[in-house]
């Protein structure tokens, strides 16, 4: 018998490994998405939202001082930090919340790590008149208190999650549990290119605008493709958004920067491609940080948004086929890059995005002056200022 399954596969990765209770919900989502994808009116509404609400297209900024300072490749920054709500997350949530509305749902739920996806979801829910509840690890509600309050201002209810490691993976667990309890009126708005099919595909489709714009903007500015595109990777949505358009352009190096925390040899890291192995978790077959018995490892990064023990299945496949390369970046390097970009260009990046900046700093000097690197600045760093101050031994209360 032919399996109806094996949907949403990227090589051997992906799939739909979720409890039976949720299967009809993901199938309903898949059908609704296929309808909307080909619906001119839906696409028009989404375009309006992206242009007139989120502020797209985002700038592609030539970082001249950084380029001069590093003395190698020309560096462009894709300014997703300038989007409404301060990160790339808005691209996906406007799509998914609009989709929820078309499906007749009245309530959205979401997980969040750093709070950027939670804030974006709460924002889209406020705009489109939906109820919104966000699940966030207790550790993250502590280190991102400002974003918690921001979500509440936007009318969302924030649930601190106290199970497990009290970070992003536990927030995902709890959001899945909540969805299994209530799906008639509720859509789970997943924040990254992960989870069961169709989420990795939907989130990638809503984020691929980043790479499309990079290509158009760079062709206009330089008349050629970049030599490398660099983005940070937790679940991997901003990276997939930046990479996707360039996958067929094999001259473009695609580089994902993983959170190495205290270092890849220290247990306190979240470098999934570097240290992980194949497993099946959170609905997908992919790479995970885990022990020999398949227990998911407690991971660590200074960045709440990258503090996740897995990676989206399409990234796992890009890593396996070698089309993209994944490199570890430590807390220390990321904090250094956070400060560097702030002083050099007057741009305070999210600590997540600072991981990508850190690798660009290493790579640029080894490249020729005629070459071009695009770094995706996935979010702005205001939310991280207090944490970075603490890292440097300065106590400020946000």
């Amino acid at each position: 018998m032919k399996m109806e399954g094996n949907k949403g596969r990227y090589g051997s990765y992906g799939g739909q490994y979720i409890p039976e209770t949720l299967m009809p919900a993901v199938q309903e989502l898949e059908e609704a998405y296929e309808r909307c994808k080909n619906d001119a009116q839906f696409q028009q509404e989404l375009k309006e939202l992206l242009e007139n609400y989120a502020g797209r297209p985002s700038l592609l900024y030539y970082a001249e001082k950084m380029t001069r300072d590093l003395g190698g490749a020309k560096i462009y920054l894709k300014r997703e930090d300038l989007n409404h709500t301060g990160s790339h997350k808005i691209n996906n949530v406007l799509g998914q919340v609009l989709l929820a509305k078309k499906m007749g749902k009245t309530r959205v739920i979401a997980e969040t790590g750093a709070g950027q996806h939670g804030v974006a979801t709460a924002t889209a829910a406020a705009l489109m008149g939906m109820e919104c509840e966000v699940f966030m690890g207790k550790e993250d509600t502590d280190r991102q208190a400002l974003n918690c309050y921001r979500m509440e201002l936007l009318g969302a209810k924030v649930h601190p999650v106290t199970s497990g490691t009290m970070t992003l993976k536990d927030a995902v667990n709890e959001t899945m549990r909540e969805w299994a309890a209530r799906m008639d009126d509720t859509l789970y708005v997943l924040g990254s290119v992960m989870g069961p099919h169709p989420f990795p595909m939907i989130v990638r489709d809503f984020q691929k605008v980043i790479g499309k714009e990079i290509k158009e903007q760079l062709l206009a500015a330089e008349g050629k493709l970049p030599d490398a595109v660099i983005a940070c990777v937790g679940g991997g949505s901003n990276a997939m958004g930046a990479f996707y358009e360039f996958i067929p352009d094999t001259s473009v190096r695609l580089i994902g920067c993983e959170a190495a925390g205290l270092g890849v040899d220290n247990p306190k890291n979240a470098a999934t491609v570097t240290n992980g192995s194949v497993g099946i978790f959170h609905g997908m077959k992919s790479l995970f940080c885990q022990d020999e018995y398949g227990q998911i490892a407690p991971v660590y990064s200074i960045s709440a948004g990258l503090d996740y023990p897995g990676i989206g299945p399409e990234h796992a496949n890009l890593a396996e086929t070698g089309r993209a390369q994944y490199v570890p970046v430590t807390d220390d390097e990321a904090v250094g890059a956070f400060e560097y970009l702030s002083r050099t260009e007057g741009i305070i990046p999210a600590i997540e995005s600072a991981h990508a900046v850190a690798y660009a700093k290493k790579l640029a000097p080894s490249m020729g002056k005629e070459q071009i690197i695009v770094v995706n600045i996935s979010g702005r760093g205001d939310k991280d200022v207090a944490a970075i101050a603490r890292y440097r031994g300065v106590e400020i209360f946000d």
Partner: protein
Amino acid sequence: MSRIEKAFEKEKAFIAFVTGGDPDIETTEALIPQMAAAGADLIEIGIPFSDPIAEGIVIQEADVRALRAGATTDKLFDMVRRVRQKTDVPIVFMTYVNPVYTYGTERFAQRCAECGVDGMIVPDVPFEEREEVSGACAAAGIELISMIAPTSRERIDRIARQARGFLYCVSSLGVTGVRNQITTNIRPMIRQVKAVSDIPCAIGFGIATPGQAQEMASCADGAIVGSAIVKLIARYGRDCAGPVCDYVREMKAAVMSATA
């Protein structure tokens, strides 16, 4: 006839769940034959997992206790091998797919067969992905237990036709855990199964009281109880055998008093 089929042969079955290694391996090991003697017709042993997304707080906490106490898949295999010398009760593993996959699915199924585990329930492997484990189970001669839920509707026919051993019928939306009331109308679900298959149906999720067990058993072939037992284990720790067995006796009596 397999041990699992025998469990449903004569009368309505009472199925007891415990988290393996909670509060320690020795306690679980002693408890299994005692629960069987007290009337449990089939025992589900949960392999504790770091991230049990289908479990409510009671079993989540049991998983944490078991993992902290050092339970591993290998230790649970060894435990079942020892338990098998004392009891013939059908035993199935309830496990998330990642511990199976990382162990090596074929190797896992083979070890189940060697140690006397009769089947496995993998809540995060739905019908569409069952080939991930079904081949290995068939090769090892153990049953992969299928599940249906209140949301399954037209999916029930397909699932029931392929079901082996027994069909795990999830009573309610959400996760495992004691519920005051089970609001789903279960009878039509079971009727839909029986129209296409004579697979025994056992209902689980939310059942705690004898009254609930009787009611659920009256519309199916058995009732599954997890969180209510795990709560007793949480409360009494290593001294849980007495209270758990009293409870099992009471629940088995309730299930048997159910009439179709």
